[in-house]
């Protein structure tokens, strides 16, 4: 049975050749290697931040600001920065997500490859490439210098909005494109108008993927430093009003603490980084839970 006959017209089910087995092993090895290479930096970053940051992750850190605390002192915390980051990102999301999702809906459902759609698509691509510091400079020039508003959390949120919109448009667009056309037709065939089809059939179908895209964008802007330095400025004190006076933020807190030569400051910087990662993780999990609950349960 194992002999391989090569007579034409009589193909036989021979065993896999040694060459193919070797190639199979080799490629398998490369895939594992590539996986390891991708995971090593991730694990390394997480481990470094965790091991360095965990020692200052205490009630003091989460409940106090840096008001009156100098670089050499122990204690002090990032309460003002956590408040600032949460407020700024919440405002940025509240502005950016509706605009971006509506843009994506227009591009996929309404433009039909038209001229306006192409122009919007082009500018979204251009916006994706804007360096974050330029977004900060833009808000600085327009909001702070031209309109003469002061430094505030809201100005920072505007800069983050500019960075968030293009990424959310792109990811939402991809998700909406994945919704099978058959569902649109099924809905139209029931005499459902297009806007209701979009609202009650298409968006719920794409929801899970869109939430993932939005969370990635949130995670990205939450770590932005440069645009915030130009718009929210610095403060060591707690400022819960995002519309007035400089506000803290976690990225700028980390940046400020890390450049101080004192070990106590550097410890605070690590813990700030850890808190930032934790906030992003919690938001991600929460978003997934909410999106998962909306879908009907399994069979």
């Amino acid at each position, binding site marked *: 049975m194992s002999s391989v006959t090569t007579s034409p017209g009589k193909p036989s089910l021979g065993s896999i050749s040694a060459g193919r087995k070797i190639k199979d092993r080799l490629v398998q090895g490369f895939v594992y290697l590539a996986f390891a290479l991708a995971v090593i930096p991730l694990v390394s970053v997480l481990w470094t931040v965790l091991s360095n940051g965990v020692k200052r992750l205490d009630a003091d850190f989460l409940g106090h600001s840096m008001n009156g605390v100098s670089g050499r002192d122990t204690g002090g915390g990032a309460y003002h920065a956590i408040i600032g980051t949460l407020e700024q990102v919440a405002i940025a999301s509240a502005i950016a997500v509706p605009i971006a999702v509506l843009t994506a809906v227009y591009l996929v459902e309404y433009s039909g490859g038209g001229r306006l759609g192409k122009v919007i698509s082009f500018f979204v691509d251009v916006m994706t490439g804007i360096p974050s510091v330029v977004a900060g400079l833009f808000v600085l020039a327009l909001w702070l210098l031209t309109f003469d508003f002061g430094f505030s959390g809201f100005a920072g949120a505007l800069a983050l909005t500019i960075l968030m919109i293009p990424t959310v448009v792109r990811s939402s667009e991809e998700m909406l494109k994945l919704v099978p056309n058959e569902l649109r*037709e099924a*809905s139209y*065939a*029931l005499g459902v108008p297009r806007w209701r089809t979009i609202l009650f059939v298409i968006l719920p*179908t794409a*929801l899970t993927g869109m939430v993932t895209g939005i969370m990635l964008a949130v995670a990205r802007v939450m770590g932005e430093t440069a645009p915030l330095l130009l718009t929210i400025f610095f403060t060591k004190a707690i400022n819960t009003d995002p519309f007035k006076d400089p506000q803290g933020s976690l990225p700028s807190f980390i940046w400020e603490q890390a450049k101080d030569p004192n070990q106590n400051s550097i410890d605070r910087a690590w813990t700030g980084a850890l808190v930032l990662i934790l906030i992003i993780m919690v938001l991600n999990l929460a978003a997934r839970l909410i999106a998962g609950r*909306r879908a*009907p349960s399994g*069979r």
Partner: protein
Amino acid sequence: MAKRIEVSGLHAYYGGTHAIEDISMTIEPRSVTAFIGPSGCGKSTFLRTLNRMHEVIPGARVEGKVLLDDEDLYGSSVDPVAVRRVVGMVFQRPNPFPTMSIYDNVAAGLKLNGVRRKSQLDEVVEESLQGANLWNEVKDRLGKPGAGLSGGQQQRLCIARAIAVQPQVLLMDEPCSALDPISTLAIEDLIGKLKGQFTIVIVTHNMQQAARVSDRTAFFNIAGTGKPGKLIEIDDTSKIFTNPEQKATEDYITGRFG
């Protein structure tokens, strides 16, 4: 409930492509009319012109008249959305809404058009599922997702969804081509039952199916690739399958070409 459809001088285009040419026919109420013909001959395109689904495709347009009991579907003041409420459609592949439960799928047409009264919805859902011979199989799991049903059940769910909005006409585009013989039989039985209530038009590649379920049969053909599809003849099903007027019809039915 059911309405007569009269089509005269209908042409359909996809951009610059002439898809079907000069079709005229009358489709009788409370009967089943089957469309047969080789692939690409315009049966499905023609079917989609009957509820203005053709124009959903970018660049597609229609010329000619489709009268539904003397009302022109393509009149300038007619809302295509309203047309589709009167002329329902079932597609080739079962396409229940994946985010909705069985109940919500059937209620979708009403809910999405603003009906909110629970008692009314309950009634329509049960009636429609019974109408689609699916009630007994799903009555204990109405809250489960529609996508969890088998292919044949999904297609009956789609039929239930289509009849829940109480259309006058039901268009079916190869409703059994993705189903096994048992499910096909279930759908065919259902078509026989539904024709007492609706005007039914079915596109099929299965000539035995056309012979089994339809009262009248229309044969479509195409002169060659790139040429528009044409209606060759329409007559009582028994006549088409035993003694058709046209040679082309006889050739197709007896399997001598295509």
